[in-house]
């Protein structure tokens, strides 16, 4: 399941952000009449189609896997948290319908109807992502029921959806999807544009890549700059509701007033120390509680049985923050260049900026995977935080290694084909038309 999710989260991110890129490109085309934007819209539509198909089937796999691997979880949680999945089903349905209209309807419907269906694809794609993240947020902050003799009663699905983690997690994940995808695509175009240095402004190939950068960075710059702010929101949620996860993320063993923020470091569960870290005094208290002297509860306060694997959570969290900060810095740089030029336009002469964009291209996806590991592994040993342990939720069927290996192999193959096809469809032939 983790393997399916690790791939699905990327398919889903691209599936959420690419329709927005394609719709903006089409809108630019309708506004400016510049055919390069139509070309872009059509290319990104192909990318959306490939990702949507793969995202759709891998999403199907996941909806079944919930039961195939975690029947205990579904028996317990289905009635409480099935609701957002049902709503996601409808949002996804809408997306499928209008994507069909968009992809195959270029010549069959009016330009406005076509653009509108693109908007609907982008909106319902974002919405289905939000519903799924709400369900995940519930696993971190269960709500909407009472436990009587270990059984959930007084079930209130609306309250479950309005759980304490829902807002911060959905905002964080949605922005992540836009930032990661658009900056990844921007990196590819930056790479080609950089090699066109010295070509005249009117050259079609350079024109194409400049236009692509304009659209992707129009989304990517604000997303990457906003992400640390939403990350702060998420971190403060974790600090209040899941102190044990925060302690693991930070490698904080002792309970301290005015705790320091660690950068780097290798937590050791045996000695209960995190050596090799750069410590910023009072930093953690400040970030987690917006108070220099706030008390941060350390892992030592919690039973050893309730600890997540500290090393993995700490390193994954650090990686996410590192990648995210680098993206925010480069985005700010790109924003400054655009402000100075008074136009969201980049030239092959912006050599250092283009280089930076190339370097950070994979960072968004890496940060997503790292962040996902931090939040999921950080929740262990619980599948529903504080309520249901993972080992009590797993299927009783023996020999789970076989489906695991099969699913992993399948997804690796799918991932490879998708990357190859995207390259073929969007990049390799670009500028030829």
């Amino acid at each position: 399941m983790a393997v399916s999710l690790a791939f699905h989260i990327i398919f889903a991110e691209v599936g959420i952000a690419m329709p927005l890129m394609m719709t903006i490109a089409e809108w630019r085309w309708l506004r400016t009449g510049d055919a390069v934007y139509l070309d872009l819209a059509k290319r990104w539509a192909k990318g959306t189609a490939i990702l949507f198909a793969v995202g759709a089937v891998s999403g199907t796999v996941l909806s079944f896997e919930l039961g195939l691997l975690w029947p205990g979880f579904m028996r317990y949680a289905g009635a409480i948290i099935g609701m957002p999945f049902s709503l996601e089903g409808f949002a996804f349905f809408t997306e499928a319908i209008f994507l069909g209209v968009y992809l195959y309807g270029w010549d069959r419907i009016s330009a406005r109807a076509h653009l509108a269906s693109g908007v609907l694809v982008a909106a319902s794609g974002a919405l289905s992502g939000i519903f799924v993240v709400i369900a995940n947020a519930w696993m971190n902050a269960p709500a909407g029921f009472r436990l009587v003799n270990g059984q959930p009663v007084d079930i209130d699905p609306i309250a479950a959806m309005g759980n304490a983690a829902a807002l911060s997690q959905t905002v964080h994940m949605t922005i992540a999807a836009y930032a990661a995808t658009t900056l990844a695509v921007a990196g590819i175009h930056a790479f080609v544009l950089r090699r066109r240095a010295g070509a005249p402004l009117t050259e079609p190939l350079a024109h194409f890549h400049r236009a692509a950068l304009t659209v992707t960075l129009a989304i990517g710059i604000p997303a990457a700059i906003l992400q640390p702010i939403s990350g702060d929101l998420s971190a403060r949620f974790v600090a209040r509701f899941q102190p044990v996860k925060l302690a693991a993320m930070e490698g904080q063993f002792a309970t301290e007033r005015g705790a320091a923020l660690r950068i780097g470091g290798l937590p050791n569960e045996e000695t209960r120390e995190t050596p090799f870290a750069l410590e910023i005094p009072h930093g953690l208290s400040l970030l987690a509680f917006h108070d220099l002297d706030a008390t941060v509860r350390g892992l030592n306060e919690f039973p050893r049985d309730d600890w997540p694997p500290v090393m993995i959570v700490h390193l994954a969290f650090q990686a996410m923050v590192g990648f995210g900060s680098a993206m925010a810095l480069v985005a700010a740089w790109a924003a400054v260049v655009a402000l100075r030029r008074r136009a969201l336009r980049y030239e092959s002469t912006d050599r250092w900026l283009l280089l930076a964009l190339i370097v950070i291209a994979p960072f968004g996806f890496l940060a997503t995977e790292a962040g996902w590991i931090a939040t999921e592994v950080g929740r262990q040993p619980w599948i529903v935080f504080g309520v249901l342990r993972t080992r009590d939720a797993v299927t009783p069927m023996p020999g789970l290694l076989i489906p695991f290996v099969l699913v992993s192999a399948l997804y690796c193959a799918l991932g490879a084909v998708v990357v190859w096809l995207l390259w073929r469809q969007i990049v390799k032939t670009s500028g030829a038309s």
Partner: protein
Amino acid sequence: MSWASYLTPAALVAGAIAASLNIYALTAGADFGGGVWDLLASGDRKDRQRSLIADAIAPIWEANHVWLILVVVLLFTAFPPAFAQLMTVLHIPLSLMLLGIVLRGSAFTFRSYDSRRDSVQRRWGRIFAITSTVTPLLLGTILGSVATGAVGEQNPTTGSSFASVYVAPWLSPFPVAVGVLALVLFAFLAAVYLTVEATDDALREDFRARALWSAVAAAVVAVIVLVLARSEAPLVWRALMVGNAAMVLRIAATVVALGAMFALWRRSYRAARIAAGVEVSLITWGWALGQFPYLVPPDMTVQSAAAPASTLELLLIALVVGLAVLVPSLRYLFKVFKAGY
């Protein structure tokens, strides 16, 4: 008990699940059937048959596929214990079916976007066609195994052997026969739809012949399923053989099946399409109502496996609102791409 007393929120959600399965069979079922005919494409017009199938499926298969996702989410939201039981005991066939679904969808998409070179196209086409054949077989087997009651009887936490809990319930004659029935019916539906959508008469005749042959095959397999039901799936047997309602259903199914064949014979393709759709719907509902009120026989009923009322009521509201968005959208989709057929 009178019929009105069955109209509980749980029964309504169960009805919505049956309806989604029915629509899934009519739409996505035909997409799978198209893959079967891709596999069996033959004669001088082989390539044109394949491209007709691809054009018919391309804009709509993803939307059609979502009906199955709807079935799954409705099932786990409204009937969590039933879902947990099905997913545990049927782990193997469900995983294989998923494998089929993933490969079918990806291969179809990859074929559209990969190189036009023949060898590349043929490789994806092969995967698409084979998985289109295997997946309905598994889907039918899964539904058939639930109807026998064998799935509901298993208790994985007792010490029974792996084979008796995870294999025997579905690997027996009745479920497999239902799998074959699903496959043949889907192929039949696809062939009938394609007679309407064919671009010229030669292609139309190709699919008319296929539709007629698969109609005959479906009748034969249906009789075999019925015979096997007597010993293996008494619930289904009773629903189809005992009482007046069963007789009405039998007569209706026979009349509609003959009507579809007659219409195909007369080349009234639109009428044949309606009859084929009604036939598949009758079979779906005959099975669903026959099994009612059991969800996972022999013990779990629609009531006993249901989630609390608060969840069911909200789910019904969501269904109504969702359908209010979906129905016009779907109508638009089919109007844009299937108008004139």
